[in-house]
């Protein structure tokens, strides 16, 4: 017994040591995953007054992240244990989702579901956003107004006119045999919209509003499970709803169980009456043509108390809005220019700088890589975000160095619906040749493109391409203009360079561009044949103008057809939002009747209908993660051009995961201190698990000629960004999803070390300038008064020009370079190893005895 006690004592000591040495995690890395279980019921009262529970389900709802959300961010909502839906609508959003049975209604509401709060801060159906009147307010024959029999509703809510005390001005009163229920919308500014007609809805609910509906009646499978992405709206997108950092909001999920029914008179209360209806569709079925459903089990009456009481409320918080620094910080911003790959990180980082008086006001201005690099070299900007080596501007470039600041990349984001209402495709595989086909506009897209010389025999769009079908079976083959191109950037960017490098280093893709037909006979658009890659700016080379017959199209037929389809834009964000909304950028929709009042106008094509969406676009990983877009896996194995194939077998595809990015970073090499790391596409492909779209973003800054305070600012930024800024999380100053954290140890250790070195070089301004003065004046342009350290540094390590006299004497300061790394494996592992061995042996010994004792008992 005593040995057990001693072992226990030792164990307690060891555990205590662990506990006291564990660190406290900061709050900003908590993304607020949510899970709640609730029993939901439908309870009817029959004609004799007997109450019975018709249906009861234990619903568990989960949301993957709920904290520090940004406008338009999508959260993943999943649930289980719900009643299986029926009559599935193709489009579950807004009023289109109403013709379904037993769906999960998901809404965004202002306020919290907390009875301890004052009424103004609590959520109610009146603070829940819907984008149409039909979802809020109902007029029905009294014989069909099921809400009037709701046993859980108050007496007032069961009257002929309910939801409001009297019919508001602008709304018509119901007839003698009708009943009216209004669910007015209370806007954040206090204004109440009666919501009895389209004209009495909040302005954001206008037909063809700027944003498509976000609320949805989502579908539960026959196994009781369901999942969907839910897009939240901040006060920037929806001022009436008004959710922001200071106004708490919730996502409310109402599992539709059917309205409960009390005892009553007339047809309504009949055993087979509308109130007790159980649905017309079988569980799991689809309702393609939008046939009528039993209202009692449809999402129409989500606001009725018997449905509403079943709700699960998910509190959400919004992060600092993008303009928080403009509002709260009056200091002049320090503008870093550069790649859009940084925008999502900068969005979360900026408040961590501007809200602290001891830091500066950080601002990220999106600019093409090379342009921002040149700005930096010309001292127009303190630093530039670039994702690769840039060309020097020439004289007096200030010996710029590159500090690794973020690891992220590009993604081919897409939205594709499987045919027959089977939901979205979630595993798209693309190879370099398919991307090359899209970028070179080799799909003719429609009958107009068929006339293009050389494209007549090509598949119309990517989903008709046998190569695409082989890699992605199970998608439809209906030709679409939007699926003939990939939405891309019109500006110069290192991302475009990386994509073209990916194509250029792939044998199949480069052979295709060189003019070799693919195994199924598809050939490259002759305008792009033999285009030399890589390029930083994808050119629009096609000049084919088809013959149009339609009057409207004829009137606007002065630009080439395929470039109009490709319609590249100036920012990745626009592409991301286009994918999010399934709204192609193609400028091919012609409206108007040709009169002066309504001229023929060529504009952006229509949104794709849910159920038949097919759209691809190049986005940043940060945007893709923020908006919850699906991203394609890219082929990494290099296959020499050969025969046809019918499946993805034998090819490896890697998606933009952290592991994929880490594997890519592992292949990166640095030529010398301060230089950017090169991500050689050949090596990336060889290491099977590396994601080819990985890019390292650097903060490039001058190491000479920068004013001392600016140098310190930039160096401080690099240090903060590579330490504090690399903690994953959604809070201010944390690193959003879509970025691989750069850490002191591990795969990204080399990047970290390099960043610290460059920060030191920038702060010390150790570089040489073209206009370097003799050593008796200071190295910096700051003139006399630059501190001795800078002076000495210029003559030290990177030893200045040959004519600089050697003055590194003992009485003059000299830079000693950087602190060498000295590590000890023994020191790093002695204690954990001892603890581990001790615990293992300590468990194994007694365990043997216990086993022996058990054997004896048997």
């Amino acid at each position: 017994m005593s040995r057990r006690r001693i072992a226990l004592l030792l164990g307690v000591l060891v555990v205590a040591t662990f506990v006291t040495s564990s660190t406290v995690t900061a709050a900003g890395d908590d993304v607020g995953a949510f899970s709640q279980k609730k029993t939901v019921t439908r309870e009817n009262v029959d004609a004799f007054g007997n109450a019975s529970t018709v249906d009861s389900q234990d619903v568990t709802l989960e949301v993957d992240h709920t904290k520090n959300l940004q406008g338009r961010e999508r959260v993943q909502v999943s649930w289980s244990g719900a009643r299986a839906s029926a009559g599935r609508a193709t489009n579950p959003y807004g009023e289109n989702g109403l013709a379904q049975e037993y769906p999960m209604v998901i809404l965004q509401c202002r306020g919290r579901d907390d009875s301890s709060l004052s009424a103004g801060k609590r959520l109610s159906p009146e603070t829940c956003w819907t984008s149409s009147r039909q979802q809020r307010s109902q007029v029905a024959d009294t014989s069909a107004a099921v809400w009037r029999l709701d046993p859980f509703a108050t007496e007032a809510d069961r009257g002929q006119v309910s939801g409001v005390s009297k019919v508001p001005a602008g709304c018509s009163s119901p007839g003698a045999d009708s009943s009216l229920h209004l669910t007015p919308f209370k806007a954040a500014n206090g204004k109440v919209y009666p919501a009895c007609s389209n004209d009495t809805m909040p302005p954001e609910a206008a037909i063809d509003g700027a944003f498509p509906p976000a609320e949805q009646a989502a579908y539960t499978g026959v196994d009781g499970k369901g999942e969907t992405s839910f897009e939240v709206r901040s006060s920037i997108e929806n001022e009436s709803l008004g959710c922001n950092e200071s106004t708490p909001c919730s996502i409310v999920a109402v599992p539709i169980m059917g309205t409960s029914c009390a005892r009553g008179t007339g047809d309504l209360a009949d055993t087979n009456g509308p109130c007790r209806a159980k649905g017309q569709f079988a569980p799991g079925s689809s309702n393609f043509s939008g046939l009528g459903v039993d209202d009692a089990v449809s999402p129409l009456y989500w606001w009725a108390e018997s449905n509403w009481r079943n709700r699960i409320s998910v509190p959400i918080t919004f992060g600092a809005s993008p303009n928080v620094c403009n509002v709260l910080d009056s200091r002049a911003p320090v503008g870093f220019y550069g790649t859009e790959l940084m925008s999502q990180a900068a969005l979360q980082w900026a408040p961590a700088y501007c809200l602290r008086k001891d830091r500066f006001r950080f601002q990220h201005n999106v600019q093409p890589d090379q342009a921002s690099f040149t700005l930096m070299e010309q001292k127009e900007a303190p630093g530039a975000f670039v994702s690769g080596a840039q060309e020097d501007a020439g004289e007096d470039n200030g010996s710029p160095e590159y500090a690794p600041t973020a690891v992220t990349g590009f993604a081919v984001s897409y939205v594709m619906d499987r045919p027959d209402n089977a939901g979205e495709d979630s595993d798209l595989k693309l190879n370099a040749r398919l991307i090359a086909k899209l970028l070179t506009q080799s799909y003719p897209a429609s009958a107009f493109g068929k006339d293009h010389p050389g494209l007549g025999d090509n598949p119309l769009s990517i989903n008709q391409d046998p190569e695409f079908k082989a890699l992605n079976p199970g998608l439809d083959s209906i030709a679409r203009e939007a699926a003939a191109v990939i939405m891309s950037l019109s500006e110069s960017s290192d991302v475009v360079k990386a994509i073209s490098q990916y194509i250029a280093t792939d044998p199949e893709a480069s052979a295709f561009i060189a003019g070799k037909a693919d195994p199924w006979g598809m050939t490259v658009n002759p305008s792009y044949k033999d285009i030399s890659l890589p390029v930083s700016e994808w050119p629009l080379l096609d000049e084919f103008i088809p013959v149009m017959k339609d009057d409207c199209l004829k009137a606007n037929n002065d630009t080439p057809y395929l470039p109009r389809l490709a319609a590249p834009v100036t920012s990745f964000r626009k592409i991301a939002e286009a994918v999010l909304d399934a709204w192609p950028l193609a400028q091919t929709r012609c409206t108007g009747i040709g009169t002066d009042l309504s001229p023929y106008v060529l504009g952006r094509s229509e949104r794709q209908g849910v159920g038949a969406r097919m759209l691809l676009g190049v986005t940043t990983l940060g945007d893709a993660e923020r908006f919850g877009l699906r991203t394609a896996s890219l082929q990494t194995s290099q296959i020499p051009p050969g025969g046809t194939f019918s499946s993805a077998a034998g090819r490896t595809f890697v998606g933009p995961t952290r592991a994929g990015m880490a594997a890519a970073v592992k292949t990166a090499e640095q030529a010398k201190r301060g230089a950017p790391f090169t991500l050689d596409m050949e090596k990336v492909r060889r290491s099977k698990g590396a994601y080819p779209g990985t890019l390292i973003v650097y903060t490039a800054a001058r190491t000479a000629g920068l004013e001392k305070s600016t140098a310190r600012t930039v160096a401080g930024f690099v240090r903060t960004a590579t330490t504090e800024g690399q903690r994953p999380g959604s809070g201010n100053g944390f690193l959003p999803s879509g970025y691989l954290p750069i850490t002191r140890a591990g795969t990204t250790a080399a990047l970290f070390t390099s960043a610290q070195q460059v920060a030191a070089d920038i702060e010390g301004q150790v570089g040489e300038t073209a206009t370097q003065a003799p050593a008796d004046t200071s190295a910096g342009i700051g003139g006399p008064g630059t501190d001795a350290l800078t002076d000495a540094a210029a003559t030290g390590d990177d030893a200045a020009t040959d004519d600089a006299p050697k003055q590194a004497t003992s009485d003059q300061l000299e830079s000693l370079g950087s602190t060498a790394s000295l590590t000890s494996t023994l020191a790093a592992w002695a204690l954990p190893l001892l603890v581990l061995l001790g615990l293992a042996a300590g468990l194994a010994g007694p365990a043997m005895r216990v086993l022996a004792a058990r054997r004896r008992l048997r």
Partner: protein
Amino acid sequence: MTTLPWGRKDSRPANGRRRGDKKPGGVRDVLAEATSSSSMSEREVVVSSGLVVLSVIMLWLVVQMLVLGGLEFSRGQDRLYGQLRAELATGEAPTGGVIAPGDPVALLKLPSLGVDQVVVEGTSAGHMLTAPGHRRDTVLPGQAGVSVLYGRSQTFGKPFQVMLQDALGKDMNVVTGQGTSTYRIEQVRRPGDPVPAPPAAGQGRLTLVTSQGSGFLSALRPGEVVYVDASLRTKSFAGGAARVNTIAKSERPMAGDHSVLPMLALTLGGLLAAVVATPFARRRFGSVLTWMIAAPVVLALAWFAADLTVYLLPNLL
């Protein structure tokens, strides 16, 4: 120790009268007894006990380093403080020249954090069990030039752990035989950070060297050497007589001291002898008496052996 069959209730009389029996009280006898009582084969008993012994040794080492070492450090500091105090009072505290390793040379004081540490001369692992060590080829604290101190970060009192966080930006007073100097603790320097320029003539700097871990279980894995620079704010003192030119390998950062191996072997031998002798003594003199005599002996030997083992580990651990 817990595996030794001291604690087991003996059914036989413990008066040693069984001396004439076959194999009286031998190891085999004990094993047979254990085997019979738990139905384990002899080999299983040996392996199981061996594992428990191994576990106890390992965990003892860990506990010694993390917990008991703290006691040892405090006691050592007490002793060194007394010695330094006496030397300061009589003017005998060293100011330069060759100082015997292990002698106290300075007192570090960070009043706001309650830090009060005596620094000893020499930086080998053994000297640093009870105090931070002063690197012998650098000037003494307070003198012009760079003075280097080593300190453990996670074991034996963790003297320099405080320097990595709380002490940053604070003023530290250092008392030596020449008087009191004030240093401002300025920065933590990790690999890749620029080395500050050497102090100008007449200026002084104190570099504190310790270790730090990163990543998972970082507190238990201080594998990387980090430096804390402090600059002298007060007037520097003149350097004393010439210092040693070179130091032993065991005094470099992260080095272990292997010169203790013979001593360790002897101690372990002694420990083994004590452990083996104990059960026999118990049969001869009874449990109570044996416990009284053997427990302190074994504990002291175990403590000493663990200390010597730590000599072999990196000195900044």
